[in-house]
């Protein structure tokens, strides 16, 4: 539901980065979204397209990689995927923080990120003193 707010931050951050390198265009943005966030990939794309329309990010590709959640147990040290509780009474598989080894409460250590991994930008080649090609 808050993808628009997140996408706004994403676009602002990318534009800021791009500006540092004098980009004339942003070609690709690689984003990793943890599966334990509340961010929908489709909604992110939708917001991204709207927000980039009048910027140098227009028509850039948003490449999203989803990342599994990882939990770590403080009691026994187990570290791994979020287990799924499959109680037939629930009709649906339910993710749980219960450690699959010792049944104690574990903590989320991965899967809550929304990280800009890389950005591909296009820029004019830097002018060399005697290049004669550029007009600077």
């Amino acid at each position, binding site marked *: 539901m808050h993808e628009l707010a997140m996408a706004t931050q994403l676009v602002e951050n990318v534009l800021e980065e791009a500006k540092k390198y004098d980009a004339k265009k942003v070609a690709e943005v690689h984003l990793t979204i943890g599966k334990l966030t509340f961010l929908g990939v489709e909604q992110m794309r939708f917001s991204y397209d709207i927000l980039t329309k009048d910027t140098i990010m227009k028509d850039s590709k948003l490449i999203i990689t989803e990342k599994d959640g990882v939990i770590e147990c403080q009691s026994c040290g187990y570290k791994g995927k979020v287990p799924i509780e499959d109680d037939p009474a629930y009709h649906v598989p339910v993710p*749980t923080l219960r450690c699959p080894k010792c049944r104690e409460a574990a903590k989320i250590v991965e899967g809550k990120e929304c*990280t800009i991994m890389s950005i591909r*930008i296009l820029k*004019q080649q830097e002018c060399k003193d005697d290049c004669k090609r550029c007009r600077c």
Partner: protein
Amino acid sequence: MTNNKEIVKGEEVTLEIKPGMNILEVNKQLAQKNKELLQEHNVKAIDIMGSIGAGKTSLIEQLVQALKQKYRIAVFKGDLTTTIDAERIGRHGVKVVTINTGLECHLDANVVARAVERISLQDIDLLIIENVGNLICPAEFPLGTEKRVVVVSVTEGPYMVLKHPFTFMTADVMVVNKKDLAEIMKIDTSQLAKQAKDIKPDMKVAITNALTGEGIEDLINALEL
């Protein structure tokens, strides 16, 4: 920056920048700052999440009523545009700051930090924050509170917990409210409690009726207040 890869093709240069920037981390860091500031002033803080109509404000009224002799309390009330709830809580004689989010579906650590500037932390021991009525988005944004409460009411049906496992993973205490309507709604409150504990084994649960105050003691115990 040393990781940047540069590819030159004619006059055009393609550059790969690797910021490795976690957008959600910004809120987390602000939340951590809030937490430290509150701890410095020995202020306990609680974030209360739940759907619209779950009974968050009524529960806060009960909490305030039960605890105002023991603690000096302030309440932050997240709401889209109105001050209706803030007035309700204000009648109990505690400081209330309304945080109108406009169109935003959740509170974040930044708006809470702004609200903290409007109160004097020296004058309070307990800060109760009522999040925007929404069971999903607030879970993404820690505010820097010591404890998080998620409120569900039996009128929301039997699947509230199972449908929102990731929200319940972020909470320390669950309240099942409107227990007086459980029978009419054919809801087994112990089932909701079991589901929450299946998702988060260390979850504490209080079953309440926020209109009469029934179960508020259990909630206070669960919050260790």
